[in-house]
């Protein structure tokens, strides 16, 4: 027992970055307290966030106790639990609809909501990593088209159920995160370059075609999607295309956010200096608050911190001798990269608006715990590296 603890090597660099991000989160939430809508004004979200962080750290501790290659045994059961919890949203009595999306469970006693899709992301990463690793272990001989197709087919079969279930909630944001996760993992799964290139080529063609159709017949496309779950996704794309026309609808948020960020300029307005009112500022739109108060310099520091975090995870993935660990790490990289890019990008009018939290910084218990758990996986992978290397040398 003593040995196993001794063998654990904590990655202080990564821990430092995560702690810094959470501190930034708490400071920003504190500064926003009195600018929130009347209904939630003055609530100490920074304290709640701190409490959630502690809960997350405990979760990380629990994750660290289990050797990470043991995860492969839980990967598929967890995956199915995740899918069932998504299915349950449609008929379980605890499911609640918030802001038009049926994505939450109401937990009765503690009176909080939990979003199963957040957990699903992690479970999917585990399952994909496990399936890719198994496929590679079992494959005899050279890679060929059959290898590529079977691997891709397995990944596809695994991804489709949660992707569809999340899409119809509707939660386009998380659905796209899942696509990114799969994309990143496919790139390093062992698929041959020519296969990947043809996939990318086909995807590109379809996207281009869809875009052309949309741009040529915008009304018909809108009509086709009217009254479906995709209606508001389409609306957001339109708003992003032409913000001023949709000023009072979907684009107001994007414009206000860009105004807040822009007016922060180089040095920012200083803490508590927010002037522009942006909805959902303590959650999805928190980056606009950082940028307005701390300017280009402050927000660049946040972006660099995120970059260093991802850099570090990729480094760990490289050092890891167990392919399962590498796949797992890269899945997490995919999740983080897309969410960071999407969230910050929408705050500065780089891409259309989608409701996604900024990892570690946006207020929200479920997401904070999920990202901390992800960090737990990486820490675990890193801490067992040495022993793994030691064993191979011994052999």
């Amino acid at each position, binding site marked *: 027992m003593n040995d196993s603890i001794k063998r654990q090597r904590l990655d202080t660099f990564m821990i430092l970055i995560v702690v810094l991000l959470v501190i930034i989160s708490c400071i920003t939430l504190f500064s926003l307290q009195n600018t929130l809508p009347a209904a939630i004004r003055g609530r100490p979200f920074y304290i709640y966030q701190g409490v959630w962080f502690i809960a997350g750290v405990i979760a990380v501790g629990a994750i660290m106790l289990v050797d990470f290659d043991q995860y492969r045994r839980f990967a598929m059961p967890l995956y199915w639990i995740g899918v069932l919890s998504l299915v349950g949203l449609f008929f379980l009595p605890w499911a609640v609809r918030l802001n038009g999306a049926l994505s939450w469970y109401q937990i009765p006693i503690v009176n909080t909501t939990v979003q199963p899709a957040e957990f699903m992301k992690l479970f999917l990463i585990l399952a994909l990593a496990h399936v890719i690793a198994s496929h590679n272990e079992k494959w005899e001989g050279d890679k060929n088209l059959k290898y590529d197709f079977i691997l891709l087919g397995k990944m596809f079969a695994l991804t489709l159920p949660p992707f569809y279930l999340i899409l119809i909630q509707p939660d386009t944001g998380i659905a796209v995160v899942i696509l990114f996760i799969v994309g990143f993992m496919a790139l390093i799964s062992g698929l041959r370059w020519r296969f990947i290139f043809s996939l990318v080529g086909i995807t590109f063609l379809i996207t281009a075609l869809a875009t052309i159709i949309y741009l040529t017949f915008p009304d018909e496309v809108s009509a086709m999607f009217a009254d479906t779950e995709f209606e508001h996704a389409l609306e957001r794309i339109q708003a992003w295309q032409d913000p001023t026309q949709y000023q009072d609808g979907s684009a107001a948020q994007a414009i206000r956010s860009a105004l807040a*960020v822009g007016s922060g300029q180089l040095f920012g307005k200083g803490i508590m200096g927010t002037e522009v009112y942006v909805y959902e500022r303590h959650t999805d739109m928190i980056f606009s608050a950082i940028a307005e108060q701390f300017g*280009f310099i402050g*927000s660049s520091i946040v972006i660099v911190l995120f970059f260093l975090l991802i850099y570090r995870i990729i480094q760990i993935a490289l050092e890891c001798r167990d*392919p399962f660990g*590498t796949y797992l790490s890269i899945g997490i990289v995919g999740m983080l990269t897309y969410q960071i*890019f999407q969230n910050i990008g929408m705050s500065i009018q780089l891409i259309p608006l989608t409701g996604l939290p900024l990892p570690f910084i946006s207020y929200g218990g479920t997401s904070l715990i999920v990202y901390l758990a992800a960090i737990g996986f990486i820490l675990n992978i890193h801490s067992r590296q040495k022993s793994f290397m030691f064993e191979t040398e011994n052999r």
Partner: protein
Amino acid sequence: MTNQKKQKSHLPLRLNILFFIIFILFSLLILQLGVVQILNGEEAQQEVNRTDKVVSETPVPRGKIFDRNGEIVVDNEQKYAITYTPRRNVQPEDNLRIAEQLSQYMDMETGEVTERDQKDYWLLKNWDKGFAKLDEEEKQLSDSDQYQLVLERITEDELSTLTEDDMKVAAIKRELDRATQLTPHVIKSEGITKEEYAVIAENSHEMPGINVSTDWDRMVPYQEFTSLIGTVRNRNRGLPRDKVNFYQNLNYKLNDRVGDRGIEEEYELYLQGNKEIREHITDKSGNVIKSEVIRQGERGKDIVLSIDMEMQQALDEIVQEEMLKVINENPNKNEHFDKTLAVMMDPNTGEVLAMSGQKYYEGDEDTEPYFNNEAYRVLMDTHLPGSTVKGATVIAGLDSGVIEPGETFRDQPLRFRGSQDKVSWTPGIGVVDDIDAIKRSSNIYMYRTAMRLGGHWDYTPNESLRYNGEGFDLLSSYYRQFGLGSYTGVDYPREENGFLGSDVKANDVLEMAIGQHENYTAMQLVQYVSTIANGGYRMEPHIVKQINNPTNDGSNSVYEANEPNVLNKVNVPDEYIERVQEGFRQVFQEPGGTASYRFSDAEYSPAGKTGTAESAIYPGDNIRIDTLNLLLVGYAPHDDPEVAFAIVAPHLDESDSHINNEIGRRMLDKYFEIKEERQSSEESSTEDEENEESEEESGE
């Protein structure tokens, strides 16, 4: 092992590629951040600084109305309300969405939905289908013209596709559309159930601008008194057309609820209260950045009437009963008698204690005859006053010097050339002085006085009546000082100052002197008799005693009191007024006084003057129906008057009814009865307190 090695060999390269992609993505972020914050930052800051100020006002409950004893006359009833506060630049689509959501949570009356509302709603729901009704050429028209055309072309059939639910949504949307930006507008306040209230409160975050709050309604315990108090207009009616400018200059909104007629209108500015004013700072897209309370709202001030509701109700009852007696006694004869006016006032302060304007409606096959209280008629309806004005005539004669105190005339028919004989009502009065003339109501005495005022000093039968052209002005200048033919100054939106003489001939001055020429309101008559009662001070009548600051704990804090206001002092020696007072006393108390048969046994020593006026009605060409007005003015007690009154019962048949005296006696009896009851209950309550105190002491 080789397999695994091989497997791993592709990884470093691919991870590097991945890392490179990530690097590019993050570089993009920083780049765009630079564009937004550094390149366009200054512009954004300017945009942020470009703000608008919008002021919104939230209505507060109206002040309450009490009677002089603290009895509540008009109260506010709190009720649940759903309000909508639109943000700036709100679009019809937004309102539609909110209406659709609201319709799931609450019921709404669809009665007020117009065809235009239905069409607007249909078009919003069927935008493309609607505009497909236009041909290419028409699509070149301006947007509003296009819209108008489409509206015209929506067919009945298309409108009939609207379901009950659609109508409900349209009804809600209609209300939402009426709201002005940033100002709360009541969407529904009638019949909101607790469930609706709770569900909407819970889900209000889904519907920006929708809030639950409370509204109020006027609650009037004394329904029958509404004619005097007036009512409050509802929001749909808004400001009255004739006073729109007046109210808008005072920052009223078009759909504000203001008092309609009566005290509610007269004291509107006090009752309204101070709305809560907030200033919102909005940016250019209309989003509120900051909002600040500039003025705290304050409920409207409370009105305390000088009316005594107990006396008021008793008076209403007395008047109704006495009218019914007359009407039922001789149903065929009194067909023109349909109302009686009565008013009581404190002659020392001008406080109006009660005013009743009972109007009798005969009803028809379906409805029973009924009374309607139209108390404002006390101020609005003018009638010939008859002999009640003789007190003023005598003072005019004494003060102008045409008669001496104690001067006598023989009451005998006056005969002028070319006209009918002029006589008194009661024959055989004989020689009378000024006091007797009042006591016995001698017309001849008044005629002789008026003749002298007009320059015709001595009477010789069969002369023609001479007139120097000044008598009327002289006589009326005295009348006006008593309030006869003057505005009384009552605190009410409207009042009449009488039907006054003009282009006066010699005979008119004589008729004026006995109350057969000018018409006065009952309020003018009570002001006149009060002026005699209090020794010559014309008091401004007040229906409102004072205005209290709104308090929640029921305590009284006076904001403004209607202090007794002397409009003028009658400019004659006290002695002359005292002679008239003595005359008035004798009318009620001494044998031979015209009202003594009914009042001489009263313990409160009343004084006053009766009046009977010939008041013909001319319902058509050359048709004349002779009727009589029976009047009574008076006060009590005669030596220290505390209550004055006037009663007008117009257009009675020439019968020998004495409705004026009957009402007069009963109302004075009632007044002193109430007074005594109050005094004794006060005494007993103070006794009780003392008893309690002593009990406590003994307990210890």
